[in-house]
């Protein structure tokens, strides 16, 4: 009898057999005390979804605010609109196309991956093609924007990335005003990176002590006033929000890819570089300048150039902050060898290093090099901004996203997600796009999860992270 009963049951079992059902999982996301019905995201290129030196539609659709917008829709979030470009190659503000991967051959005939613009030119016309009438947009991310730009009246006329989607009926619209037109219940604000980045990527060419130019470092007072004003404006109607701090520049491949020294130099080459026909003459001239009191001992030591055979030697760089000795002797240009801790930019031409004797017989121009002082200027400014951001988050009960720590993890062992490792290594690390500054799509997804984690913890929400490994890889 027992057997018969089982025989009747078994065909039923077979029907349901191959559908294991994980039934006690409860993925009911909740919004906690936040209201995502009208969300705006305000910021710079990172908010816009900029990658590989360009804005492009297929990257915009996976901007971190767009990813957040999708997750928010599970908990009552409304539609999240973005000022998308037309399909195409994308463009930088100067009309250069997006970088893509190519295999190039260097001056020594060695083939290797090198990012190059994927088209002869970008679609600069897209930037003058206004889509503002369809606004306001929920993503108010404008590449190039610094903190104080967000409240500049008529900023659209100054920055075409904003001009293309700003209100055509109001030529004075500011970025914050554009955001407020959506009457937001929730906002993200991620701004301040460009307040130091232009200075850093230009090799410290701007004013480190304040100024509003592209290459200047915004002074703390200006930054704090601008940021406080923006948070005040965005929270006027009781909106809640998440604000993120500024990553350290040593977290991004733009500054960590090119080494500050040569491969090992052989003894003959070192002897030639040290000879009286080369740096020997310079060193002798320095001794004379020192004897004449033009430079002190410390500068004499810093500037004396010496190559040692059989080992790595740091590059010779031009450093305009050194005492100008060309009045004494035109051959005494302001050069020295780089010191550990200093950084070279990704833009330093590799062929000039390999075949043009840059860094050895010829000093590297200063726009490719960050001195210890310049790095210190950047760090001081970044730390100051981050103190302001953190205290404003605390004071206003906003979710604080420690983007700086998260990005630092990438260059410090990497972030492993379900077995896939993401690092800050240029190109092959997977987390950064080909400009070495902006994240890749998966990098942005990692950032979006940091926002979700901070929002969940601040507002008691239970919004799922996104599956980073499902997003597109670099192309």
């Amino acid at each position, binding site marked *: 009898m027992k057997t018969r009963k089982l025989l009747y049951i078994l065909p039923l*079992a077979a029907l349901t057999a191959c559908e294991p059902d994980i039934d*006690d999982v409860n993925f009911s996301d909740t919004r906690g005390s936040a209201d995502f019905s009208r969300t705006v995201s305000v910021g710079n290129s990172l908010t816009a979804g900029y990658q590989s030196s360009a804005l492009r539609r297929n990257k915009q659709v996976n901007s971190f605010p767009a990813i957040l917008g999708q997750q928010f829709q599970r908990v009552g979030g409304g539609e999240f609109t973005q000022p998308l470009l037309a399909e195409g190659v994308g463009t930088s503000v100067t009309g250069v196309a997006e970088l893509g991967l190519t295999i190039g051959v260097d001056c020594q005939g060695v083939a290797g991956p090198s990012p190059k613009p994927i088209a002869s030119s970008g679609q600069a016309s897209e930037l003058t093609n206004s889509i503002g009438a369809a606004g306001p947009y929920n993503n108010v991310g404008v590449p190039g924007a610094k903190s104080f730009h967000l409240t500049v009246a008529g900023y659209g006329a100054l920055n075409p990335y904003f001009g293309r989607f700003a209100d055509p009926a109001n030529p004075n619209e500011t970025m914050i005003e554009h955001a407020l037109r959506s009457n937001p219940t929730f906002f993200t604000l991620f701004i301040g990176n460009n307040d130091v980045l232009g200075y850093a990527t230009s090799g410290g060419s701007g004013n480190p002590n304040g100024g509003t130019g592209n290459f200047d470092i915004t002074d703390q007072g200006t930054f704090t006033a601008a940021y406080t004003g923006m948070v005040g404006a965005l929270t006027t109607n009781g909106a809640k929000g998440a604000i993120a701090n500024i990553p350290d520049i040593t977290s991004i491949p733009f500054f960590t890819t090119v080494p500050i020294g040569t491969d090992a130099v052989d003894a003959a080459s070192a002897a030639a570089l040290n000879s009286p026909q080369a740096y020997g003459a310079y060193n002798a001239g320095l001794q004379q300048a020192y004897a004449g009191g033009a430079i002190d001992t410390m500068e004499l030591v810093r500037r004396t150039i010496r190559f040692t055979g059989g080992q790595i030697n740091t590059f010779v760089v031009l450093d305009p902050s050194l005492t100008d000795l060309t009045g004494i002797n035109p051959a005494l240009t302001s050069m020295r060898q780089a010191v550990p801790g200093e950084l070279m930019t990704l833009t330093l031409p590799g062929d000039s290093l390999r075949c043009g004797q840059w860094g050895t017989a010829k000093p590297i121009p200063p726009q490719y090099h960050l001195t210890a002082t310049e790095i210190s200027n950047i760090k001081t400014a970044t730390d100051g901004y981050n103190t302001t951001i953190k205290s404003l988050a605390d004071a206003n009960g906003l979710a604080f996203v420690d983007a700086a720590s998260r990005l630092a993890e990438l260059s410090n062992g990497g972030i492993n997600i*379900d077995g896939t490792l993401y690092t800050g290594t240029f*190109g*092959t690390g997977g987390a950064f796009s080909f400009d070495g500054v902006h994240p890749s799509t998966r990098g942005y997804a990692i950032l979006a999860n940091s926002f979700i984690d901070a929002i969940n913890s601040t507002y008691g929400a239970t919004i799922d992270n996104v599956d980073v490994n499902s997003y597109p*890889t670099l192309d």
Partner: protein
Amino acid sequence: MKKLLLPLLGMIPLLSFAGGFQVNLQGTKQTGMGHLGSSFYLGASSTYFNPAMMGLDSNKFSIEAGVNFISSSVEYQSQKTGFSEMTDNPLGTPFYLYATYKISDKLSAGLGVYTPFGSTVDWGEDWTGKELIQDISLSAIFIQPTISYKISDKLRVGGGVNIVSGSVELNRNVRSSIGNENTVNLTGDAIAYGFNAAVYYEASDKLSFGLTYKSQVDVELEGGKADFTVNELGAASGVNDTKFDATLPLPSMATLGIAYRVNEKLLVSAEGSFVGWSAYESLDFDFEDNTPLVQDSENPRNYEDSYIFRVGAQYSINNMFDFRAGFYFDQSPVQDEFFSPETPNSDNLGITSGMSGHIGENFGFDLSILYIVGMERESYYPLENQQPFGGKYASRSVIAGVGLNYSF
């Protein structure tokens, strides 16, 4: 016959539906009653279940062969993102083949070819854990020449050699952060050896006992092939096709069974097995050339010894038909902290049923069906200095078996 069968068996995809990557489907009759059969004779398949019983057949020659059809899937669900994935495992069809010959009243010889270990799991190319595993197919074919000896009417012993042909093929992503197309294909095979020993004791007409032991076999893959497919960025990371060594231990198993003939028609039996899975501590890959994409790796498994408990019954309606049913509980050797999606194994409940038909004096056929519930578990696999990979897993399998036997 061996030569013909081996290439065939080598291609059989099997599925992990017993503890670890054990495959307990060595006889259709036994499968029908909870896969037990160490303490009572059911034909030539006793070569596997308890070789001490080989001389119990009334005929001189006995041959038994069969095949199983496995349909199975495992579901995974991340508890962090809600991402879920179901394996797309191919239909598995493991075979078995046994032949026994009674040399004399006391001495018998037998040969078995069967697949007690194997696994085929296919998570697909693009699931989130693709750098851990995309798909894996491993199998171990045992060839077992065995003899048995009747010490007395009550006591019999048996034993022999296990010649094991093990093979593995797996695909996984490498550096998928820069392209889902970056993959490595690892293949290898090896021959290894072990032994088996068994005792059968017939206490009375009604009561009998069986005790069997199968030794651990370490399948040492040497010079396996690691072939890479990478995109330009992957190539820039440095990659060369290379070779690898790895060792896969197949655990020992000890089984104690008891059978009781309630009357001429009804037989009941129970069995317990101890499986020495703690031998599987880690799966280490030693590559010939190490490059940034190909690093020697030690992957902890830390399996624990496990137990299997089985009960089953056989009811003979007449000389024509036998019906069977059974149930077993098969404990997973995998710990929650070391649960790799390559062997997504949980505690299994097996419900079985089967029948045999006898046609004439010499010929018979067997049918079985087995339904396995892989109980839901939440488990994780450690990633160095990072949040572990895992979530909830559950599985279901249906296995239909067909067997034929002939004795003369």
